[in-house]
């Protein structure tokens, strides 16, 4: 029983520790366009895992109008997002998790 409680606590703790959920999903949830749509737009432009992650990290570190994949209408409505406050390590963690959740590999039947 003690073990189970300990495991539960650990799991809850690890959820709380997800940089992606805390720092990305939390904001995007409130937006009319869901976070997965951004992923597919990135995929449409960058194709591979490395290219997508690099482009995303580059954008998050220094978001500009030129680099965004946002459609013009949305860009006018929401504007360019602010620079990330995450350090490189956390940013990479968040992007990696984002990739793992929405990647196409292994999902097609």
């Amino acid at each position, binding site marked *: 029983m003690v073990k189970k409680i300990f495991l539960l606590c650990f799991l809850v703790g690890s959820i709380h520790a997800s940089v992606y959920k805390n720092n990305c999903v939390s904001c995007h949830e409130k937006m009319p366009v869901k976070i*997965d749509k951004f992923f*597919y737009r990135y*995929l*449409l*432009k*960058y*194709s*591979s*895992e*490395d*290219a*997508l992650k690099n482009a995303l990290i580059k954008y998050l570190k220094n978001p500009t109008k030129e680099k965004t994949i946002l459609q013009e209408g949305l860009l006018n409505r929401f504007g360019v997002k602010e620079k990330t406050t995450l350090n490189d390590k956390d940013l990479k963690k968040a992007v990696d998790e984002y990739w793992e959740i929405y990647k*196409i*590999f292994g*999902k*097609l*039947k």
Partner: protein
Amino acid sequence: MLKSWDTNLLQSEKKTLFSFFILYLIFIILLLSILGVMYYNFQKDLMLQKNRLELSYLANEQLLKLKDLHVNFDKNRVYPRDVRFNSAIYDSSKKEIFSTFSNKHIDFNEVIYMDEDKIYLIKEPESYYLGTKYLVLEVKSDSSWHKNVYKTLSIYGAGLFLLMVVFGYFLLRLLLKPMREAIELLDRFIKDTTHELNTPVNAIMSNIEMIDTNSLDEKLAKKIKRIDIGARTVSNLYQDLTYLTLAHKIVSNDEDVNLQEVIEERIEYFTLFAQSRKIDINCDLEENISLHIDRKKITKLIDNLLSNAVKYNKIKGTINIRLQDGYFEVHDSGRGIAQEKIDAMFERYTRADESVGGFGIGLSIVHMIAEEYTLHVKITSKEKKWTKVRVSW
């Protein structure tokens, strides 16, 4: 047996021509192979280009389906399949996203290509639906073009090959022309010269025979002997040359010839010549050995061997003649023949020793006769010591 020796070529020249012909054939085969490969590749490209348009159309159809899937990926995750083709999608790092075919080795540098019996088309969409940088279509190729290409290649290849061989033959004749002309010139010269020799030599020989040497004093008898030897040598030479130039007109009259008798008769004929050089002739002749052969020809063969044995012997030398069942040999104690020259000895106008007179036709005649009757002539020699010619059957 009829022979055309007037235009026959020497052994080494034949070898050169044979090498030339082999080289020419290799060159033709190589050339035709290159042309064949070029034609095959050209036809393959043509076939691929014909397929390219249709495959591009199918690829565009597939891209539209991928686009649809990309947009609705949260609702549908079934990869679009088509009975007309197999397909695969790859991201920009050439990592496979999904594939409906088994071939994992795709050549991304090509737009369309063949691998075994499959045709592959690689399409790069403008937008990477589902991350697709490369859409690969695989269709089975129609093998009828293969058959047509091979048919055309074999018909035209064989035709061209034959044409080139005929061309090569005429080229060879063109190359041979000066060589033939040179040999014909020499043959004609010898023919003309020998013709003029016949009458005076016969006159000398018949007149010597009529002289009774016993009634002459010793000095004069010696001189007459020398004239006799000289006349016989010229007569021999005349016969050799006649044989060589008229060989194709001589019809063999084969009979069973007792070799012991012939050899003894020819030794007697050469005794005078041998005595003049103080050469000792030893015989070891087995009796009752006969060959089915033209008498004149075997006489000519023996004459030439004996004549050489005397001519190329040293003063006070020896000649050992042996006749056994299956062979006879003439072994002299002469100046010998260098090892490297032995092979060329049977060629006309070849002489091992230029210091002694002659045309270099003696062994050529031996070779001709031996070849006609499938006799095997083997020369062994030690330079400056001895020469042994063995004729076996």
